C-alpha cells in the first residue's frame, strides 16, 4: 500500500523523507538550488519538537549539526557546491569522531559560483574525497522525486547505523522537478536508530561484532571525550602508529564490510543486453528514455541506475555489465564516476558528457549506441 498520489518537488520530498526518517534537527545556510529543503524544515520541525536554525555560514551549519547529533538527535544539513566545499573539514570531523549526519548537496554548475540554478554532477569525486585524509564515505543519489523520499530515509538510517556522515548527492534536475509520487505508508518504513552506550564502563570507540561502536551520548553522565584528533578506544588523543592505523582501518572497514547492506542499484533488462547505459541522479532520466528509444529500434539495451555511488559498486557493475559489448556512462560533468567503471571494464566503457548546465537529451545518449551498432561494435 502507499499513500494517495500527489505532486511533489524533489527538494520537498527530500525534506519530508528526512522527517519520516526521524530527523529532528536541521542547520543550514541559504543556497540555491537547495533552499526549499531548509524552508520546509523551518516550517515543519518545530511542529514535531524538532529544531531548525539558520546559521551564519555553511561551516557553522555543519558544526551545529554535529553538536546536535551528539545529543542523540538525528541531524542533517542541505547545501550546494560552494557550501559543500566549505563544509568539507567538518565532514571529516564527523568521519573521524563517527558522528551520524547527512549532508544534502543539490549539485549545480561549478567550479566556484558557477550557475546557481543549472544542474551538474560535478561534485561526485568531491563527495568521495572532499575532506582531507584517508576515510570512507557513503553517498546516495536519487533519480526520482519518490527516491528523494525513500533514499533519504536510507541515508539517515545508514548514518545512524554506521555512525558516519552520509552525502545525499542530488542535482538541480531532481531537486527542482515536480512529479507524481505515492509515498509509502509510515508503517512500511524501516527506521534505524543508532546504538548508544548505556553505562560508563563501555568504551566509546570500541568496535562491536558488527563493526560499529555504540555511541556515547552527551547528558547521560558518562563523561566521554570526543575529538577530531587521532584517538584510541577511550576517545582520548593517541599518537601511537598502531592506534592511528587501526582507527583508519576501522573507519574504512565498517563501510567496506557492509557493502551488501549499503549498495543500491536498479538493473533493467541488463541480462541479455548488448549495450548497457549506466547512470545516476538526473541523467538517469535521459538514460532511461534513451533505452526506450533504442528498444524501439530493436537494439538490446539495458539500463543500470546507481543509487549508491560511494562506496562504488564495483562488483555489481562488473557482474551486470561484463557480457555487454559496450557500456555507455552519461554524466553532467567532464567524466568523474566513469573513472571507477574504467577500473573494472576498461575496454567497454564509453563516457558521454555534458557540462553546459543542461540535462542531456535522450537522443544524444541513444546516438552513442546507434553509432556503435552502425560501426558493428
Amino acid at each position: 500500500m502507499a499513500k494517495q498520489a500527489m505532486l511533489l518537488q524533489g527538494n520537498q520530498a527530500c525534506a519530508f523523507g528526512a522527517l519520516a526518517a526521524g530527523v529532528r534537527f536541521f542547520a543550514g545556510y541559504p543556497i540555491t538550488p537547495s533552499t526549499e529543503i531548509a524552508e520546509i524544515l523551518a516550517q515543519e520541525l518545530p511542529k514535531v519538537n524538532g529544531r531548525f536554525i539558520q546559521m551564519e555560514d555553511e561551516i557553522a551549519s555543519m558544526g551545529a549539526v554535529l553538536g546536535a547529533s551528539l545529543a542523540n538527535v538525528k541531524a542533517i544539513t542541505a547545501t550546494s557546491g560552494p557550501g559543500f566545499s566549505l563544509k568539507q573539514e567538518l565532514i571529516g570531523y564527523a568521519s573521524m569522531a563517527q558522528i551520524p549526519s547527512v549532508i544534502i548537496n543539490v549539485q549545480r554548475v561549478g567550479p566556484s559560483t558557477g550557475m546557481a540554478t543549472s544542474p551538474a554532477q560535478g561534485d561526485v569525486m568531491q563527495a568521495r574525497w572532499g575532506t582531507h585524509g584517508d576515510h570512507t564515505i557513503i553517498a546516495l543519489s536519487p533519480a526520482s522525486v519518490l527516491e528523494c523520499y525513500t533514499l533519504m530515509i536510507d541515508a539517515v538510517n545508514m548514518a545512524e547505523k554506521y555512525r558516519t556522515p552520509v552525502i545525499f548527492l542530488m542535482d538541480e534536475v531532481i531537486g527542482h522537478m515536480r512529479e507524481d509520487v505515492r509515498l509509502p505508508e509510515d508503517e512500511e518504513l524501516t527506521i534505524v536508530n543508532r546504538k548508544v552506550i548505556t553505562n560508563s564502563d563501555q568504551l566509546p570507540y570500541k568496535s562491536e561484532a558488527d563493526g560499529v561502536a555504540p555511541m556515547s551520548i552527551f547528558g547521560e553522565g558518562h563523561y566521554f571525550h570526543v575529538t577530531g584528533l587521532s584517538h584510541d578506544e577511550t576517545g582520548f588523543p593517541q599518537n601511537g602508529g598502531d592506534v592511528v592505523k587501526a582507527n583508519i582501518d576501522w573507519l574504512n572497514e565498517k563501510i567496506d564490510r557492509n557493502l551488501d547492506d549499503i549498495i543500491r542499484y536498479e538493473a533493467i533488462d541488463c541480462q541479455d543486453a548488448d549495450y548497457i547505459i549506466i547512470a545516476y541522479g538526473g541523467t538517469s532520466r535521459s538514460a532511461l528514455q534513451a533505452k526506450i528509444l533504442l528498444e524501439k529500434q530493436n537494439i538490446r539495451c539495458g539500463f543500470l541506475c546507481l543509487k549508491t555511488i560511494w562506496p562504488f559498486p564495483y562488483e555489481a557493475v562488473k557482474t551486470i555489465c561484463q557480457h555487454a559489448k559496450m557500456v555507455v556512462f552519461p554524466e553532467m560533468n567532464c567524466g568523474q564516476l566513469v573513472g571507477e567503471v574504467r577500473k573494472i571494464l576498461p575496454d567497454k566503457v564509453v563516457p558521454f558528457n555534458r557540462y553546459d548546465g543542461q540535462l542531456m537529451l535522450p537522443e544524444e545518449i541513444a546516438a552513442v549506441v546507434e553509432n556503435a551498432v552502425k560501426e558493428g561494435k
Partner: protein
Amino acid sequence: MKQLRLTGSGGQGIITMAIILAEGAVQAGYHAVQTQAYGPEARGGASKAEVIISKEDIAYPKVRQPNIVLAMNQEGCDKYSGGLRKDDLLIVDETFVKILPNTEAKIIALPITTCAREKLGKELFSNIIALGVLGKAMQLLDKETLEKAVLARVPKGTEEKNSQAFAIGWDLL
C-alpha cells in the same frame, strides 16, 4: 501523452499555472512531471514552465515535442512556439502578443489579461483565466478536477475570485 509548454514574463504566474495543471492531472489519475527553466535559459523576460501528462511513467522530464504552447507575452511566443506541428495548438494572450508566428499549428488568440483587468479588476488573475482556457483546450481534464486543483493552490481568501477567473477562462474559448 500531452506535452505542454507555458511561457510569459516573470510575475505572470507561469510556474504556478504549470503546478496547478500537473496537480490536476495527478488528481485525475495521470502521471505528471513539471519543470521550469531558470538562469540563462529564462533570461530576457521569457520564463518557461513545462508539464508532461501521461498514462505511462515519464522518464525524461523535459518537453521534447510540445503539443500545446501557451504564450502570455511576445518574447515567450517568439522564443518557445517553434516546433509545433499541424495538430498542435498555440494559445496566446493577445493583450501582449501582437505578432503571431508562422506555424502549422492551430492558433487561439484571446484577450486574457484584458479580461482579467475588465472583469475582475486585477491583471493578477490572468494566469488563472489562462488556465481555464488551457484546461478546456487540452481536452484531457474535466472542469471540476482542474478547478479543485486551482482552489487548493491559491492563497486563502482569494478562492472566490480565482474560481470566477477560472470560469471566465473556461468560457472564453
